[in-house]
């Protein structure tokens, strides 16, 4: 059962690296991360924070871009080239095909994020001690930062995979342009899920209809902001693994929901 999935995933992974736009985004991301220490001088007294904000922000942002543009092309390309018929004619079910495509995308993104993460760690390891030395109080929280950054990158993996899942599902439903737009909208709206919760609060004067609509939106949408723990890193606060596991658990639950929807939709689609 798993072998066809891995075959599809491996083929997807190899094919993804031939996509030039992916390489372009990765190179641009590394350039931004690499130059984050230059931007740091724009925030005197908070250079360390600026490096972290730009570095981790870039990993999340460019990871998301890769996920959107890769995810929305994975299945439509197979349909356009009609290779999907060949694949599905072999003993590969539609569920295995969708999941295999997704796993191939996951592997591609994982490699991209690892490369960006290494680039960030190099910049951080070189520049951060200088900035931390400039402000003694930064030196105190400096030690906690290394492990917190690793945790932030782990969370970025799950966040970006969730975006990839949405992109893959959107591409089974809509045209390429529309699926890109839909994925972006879900991502950005998901970033502000708290906002919907506040708007649906009756104490803030939300009507019954608004409570139902916005409350449902809040419960259905993935909460992307939970994957962002930069605030804790900037403050040098320890983030326990138990919390991280809960966040990852929530992300995985949404991922299962998204892939299940993708399977249900793709199973009915004429290809």
């Amino acid at each position, binding site marked *: 059962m798993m072998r066809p999935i891995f075959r599809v995933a491996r083929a997807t992974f190899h094919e993804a690296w031939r996509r030039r736009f992916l390489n372009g985004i990765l190179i641009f991301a590394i350039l931004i991360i690499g130059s984050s220490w230059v*931007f740091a001088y*724009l*925030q*005197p*007294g*908070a250079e360390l*924070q*600026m490096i972290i*904000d*730009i570095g981790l*922000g870039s990993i*999340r*942002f460019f990871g998301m871009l890769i996920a959107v543009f890769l995810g929305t092309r994975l299945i439509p390309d197979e349909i356009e080239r009609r290779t999907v018929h060949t694949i599905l004619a072999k003993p590969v079910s539609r569920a295995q095909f969708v999941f295999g495509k997704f796993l191939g995308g996951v592997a591609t993104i994982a490699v991209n994020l690892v490369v960006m993460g290494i680039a960030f760690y190099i910049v951080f390891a070189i520049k951060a001690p200088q900035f931390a030395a400039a402000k*003694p*109080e930064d030196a*105190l929280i400096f030690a906690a930062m290394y492990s917190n950054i690793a945790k932030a990158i782990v969370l970025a993996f799950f966040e970006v995979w969730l975006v990839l899942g949405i992109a893959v599902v959107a591409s089974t439903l809509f045209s390429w342009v529309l699926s890109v737009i839909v994925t972006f909208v879900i991502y*950005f709206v998901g*970033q*502000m899920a*708290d*906002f919907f919760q*506040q*708007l649906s609060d009756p104490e803030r004067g939300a009507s019954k209809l608004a409570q139902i609509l916005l409350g449902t939106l809040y*419960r*259905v949408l993935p*909460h992307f*902001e*939970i994957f*962002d*723990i930069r*605030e*804790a890193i*900037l*403050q040098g*606060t320890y*983030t*326990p693994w138990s*919390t991280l596991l*809960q*966040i990852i*658990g*929530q992300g995985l*639950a*949404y991922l*299962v*929901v998204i892939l*299940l*929807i993708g*399977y*249900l939709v793709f*199973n*009915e689609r004429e290809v």
Partner: protein
Amino acid sequence: MKSYKIIGWLAVLALLVAVQPLDRSVEYDRLVLGLQQPTPWFQIAARGSAGDTELAVTGVTGVIVGAALGGFREVAATMLWMKTHEYWHKGEALQAKALWLMRLVTLLDPHWLEPWRVTAWHLAYNLYVETDDPALRAKYLQMGVDCLKEGVSWNPDRYDLYLELGWTYFDKVEDFEEANKWFKAAMLYPHPEYVDRLVGHAYERMPDIPRSLDAYDYCLKRDPQDHTAKGATLTIRERYLIPWYLAEQGKYDEALAAINEYLLAKPNSSLGLHVKGAIAEQAGKLRLAYDTWKLAGDISQLDFLAQSKAVQLAHELGIETEDTAQYLYMQKVGKDLKVSMPGRDTMAR
């Protein structure tokens, strides 16, 4: 509909329901551990819509929304911060907009200390001097102080804003009691050593001579080579300790004679006049106290404490006077300007 589809969609619904308790647990952890963004977007949006200047709102939509969507909060704060400088230096017409943007920067990145410091400085210092209306000046002082207090609430583990707030009270409001409260708070965290001396300076100006000696004593115990603290201790002992000690004993005439002796040599000594004014007030010689504080306030335009005291005593004595910004501020916050000289045992000194 095929049965697998029904089961599939039911599974989707079941999973979405099942994830809700986990969501609540994650939200709780994020709140308790401080993982949430410092200022929720709805609060920033609320401030954006309350903006009364077109330019400020343009700044919000362009940069802040972009940052909100992209997740580069600090970068957006930095970009807006640079814009604030541009507006501020273009002159008076754009200063309100600059301040509006500065406030947004503090909302976007409340752990960045510089915007709190500079925004409060613009309010309590720069806007203050651009008006002659004492009520408006008092309002700017209050705004500056409130801005720093909010900054402190965001950054309670760093000395910087405690010091900044203490300094604003020390230098601009001249509420030395309040200044010391914040200087002492700054001393609880890693801080430069001049902060310790500021406590002594504030007590000296208040004046509270025994406490200023205690503060300098602390500085000298920490660093016996602290020349500033050493010099201040010698000066206080030589000039003000005896008059103060006599006043504490209730020997006001002798105390006044002692301080007058020093003032004969240095008639414009601000601290000497402060000590004399405090003693006269304690002795119930309100007219003398008024004249002394008035003189000190006239000698130095920046002696806001003397000016406030003179206004307060003028009101008590029925003398016509103009309220100063600092006096109005003190009235507004319900601060008592009366000198208190509790009977402390200063004999040991």
